[in-house]
């Protein structure tokens, strides 16, 4: 891809709301964009370190709840007659808190879970997301449990000449998500194309050899986990302030699966894989909505997924790249 091609792509996306101000299309693109950010973060773990985290939605949900709670404020008892009270804070503070809290849990999970790898790691990550879902369901004083956190304020930004304004319109939210997605992409690219990224790929390619030349396994896997979790937390925060209602279902396994599918079909371990896979699996369900019943849609997904794994096991982006090389 030519040097400027990605920026042309971003520019086209940025101009889209001006050319086609269709609120339905913008809504679909915005929620696809949020999941693409999630997929970009998952790709850092799954694609570059080769560790399959099936609890990735945990970081997404943590970000959503953290951001919502910081912006709504809370007042909870923690036993011993002590209470923690937080007055409602600006949304940008919630956004940063979401990244920090998710990143911290990424560190914790990385420290604990990377002692084991392979199937055990997968199991630990699944449990991690399930535990968080149980906490969200049952810690009603904090999370309202199944009654959900409602009236979450929309994202607000400081805009030149207008001061701090809440983003109510579809187009504004779309641009916000696009901006964060571009940032997330750049962060992952910078990381991957560096000494750290090489260490990650070396560990994936041949762990014994990597250790023999002095690459510290846990250290680098934890760095990847923290950055990955932080970006997923940011996506969760965007989700919370866009949908503006959060319930424990945000921790559902299906969201992890959605992100995994996006990464694998697009091409894990490639920068553009999660974007391509995310666009396909973020947009196709809504394109099908008018034509196929939900049950038929799930069947179609399943078939599509099997076909991808059978015929493009490395994903779309690597397949296109090798096609281009041959041409």
């Amino acid at each position: 891809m030519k040097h400027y091609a990605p920026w042309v792509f971003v520019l086209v996306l940025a101009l889209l709301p001006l050319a086609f101000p269709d609120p339905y299309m913008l809504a679909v693109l915005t929620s696809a964009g949020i999941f693409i950010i999630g997929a970009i973060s998952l790709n850092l773990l799954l694609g570059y370190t080769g560790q399959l985290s099936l609890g990735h939605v945990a970081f997404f949900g943590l970000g959503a709840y953290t951001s919502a709670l910081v912006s709504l404020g809370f007042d909870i008892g923690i036993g011993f007659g002590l209470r923690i009270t937080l007055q409602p804070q600006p949304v940008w503070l919630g956004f940063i808190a979401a990244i920090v809290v998710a990143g911290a849990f990424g560190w914790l999970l990385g420290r604990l879970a990377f002692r084991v790898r392979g199937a055990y790691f997968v199991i630990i990550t699944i449990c991690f997301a399930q535990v968080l879902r149980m906490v969200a369901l049952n810690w009603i004083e904090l999370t309202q449990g199944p009654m959900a956190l409602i009236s979450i304020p929309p994202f607000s930004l400081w805009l030149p000449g207008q001061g701090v304004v809440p983003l109510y319109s579809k187009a504004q939210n779309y641009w916000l998500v696009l901006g964060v997605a571009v940032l997330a992409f750049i962060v992952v690219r910078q990381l991957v194309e560096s000494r750290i990224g090489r260490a990650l790929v070396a560990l994936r390619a041949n762990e014994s050899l990597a250790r023999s030349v002095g690459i510290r396994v846990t250290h680098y896997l934890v760095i990847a986990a923290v950055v990955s979790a932080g970006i997923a937390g940011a996506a969760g925060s965007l989700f919370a302030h866009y949908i503006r209602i959060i319930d424990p279902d945000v921790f559902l396994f299906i969201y992890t699966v959605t992100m995994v599918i996006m990464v694998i079909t697009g091409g894990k371990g490639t920068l553009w894989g999660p974007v391509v896979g995310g666009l396909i699996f973020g947009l196709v369900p809504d394109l099908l909505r008018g034509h196929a019943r939900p049950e038929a849609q799930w069947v179609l997904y399943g078939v599509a997924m099997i076909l991808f794994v059978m015929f493009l096991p490395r994903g779309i982006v690597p397949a296109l790249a090798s096609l281009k090389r041959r041409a």
Partner: protein
Amino acid sequence: MTGLLQVEGLAVHIGGLVAIADASFTVPEGQVVSLIGPNGAGKTTAFNVITGYMRPTKGRILFDGADITGLAPDRIAERGIVRSFQRTSVFTGCTVLENALMALHRRGSAGLLGALFRLPSAKREEARLLAEAWAMLEFTGLAERADTAAEVLAYGEQRRLGIALAAIASPRLLLLDEPAAGLNPSETAACMALIRQLRDRGATILLVEHDMPMVMQMSDTIVVLNQGRIIASGAPADIRANPEVIRAYLGSGEWQEAAHAEA
């Protein structure tokens, strides 16, 4: 005698099997020391223990005077002991140049901030590492293969890359596990030249090898293991004349069979 590496009273039991019963030896700085013996004598086990891939049952390992027994492989590598592997071992899916850059890990220090913000220090370091990688590829004769995927190299080239990857981390002690296994005579000669050059650049080398002419030519000291025990150690000429070594290893012709079996 103190040396760069001292192995003291090493014993390794794997389940009920005694891989190494009792072994002590020293690798003096700047020398090439070879560890020889029939298959199953415990040579590779010794390598695995020294580099942290296995834990010893008894005994300790001193490197430059410090006890490194039981440290993790990456920690031991950080202290300056790097090994090559008996089976071909490269970073698959990466080009030869990328392999070299990965093995240069220890020569850099750029962290998260340097990577994210492309700090000038990180950029300078990248340029330096790239230059070092190219220099090592020139040195090992792999420069024209720089853009080739490591796993499609010819066998001899892969072996050479394996040694280059261990050497490129600029270890103080380089452990080579059968570097000439499966190589034809001209490739073996190239391999020997490479090892000599590495020694001349200041690396101390501990070598496990079945190719006796190579061992006899290369080594300053030879340590002979048999059934988990050291039965002799000394200069090549002494080893060649040692009756116990001849009985256990050299004279039986077993080493030739072993070398053929592995090739």
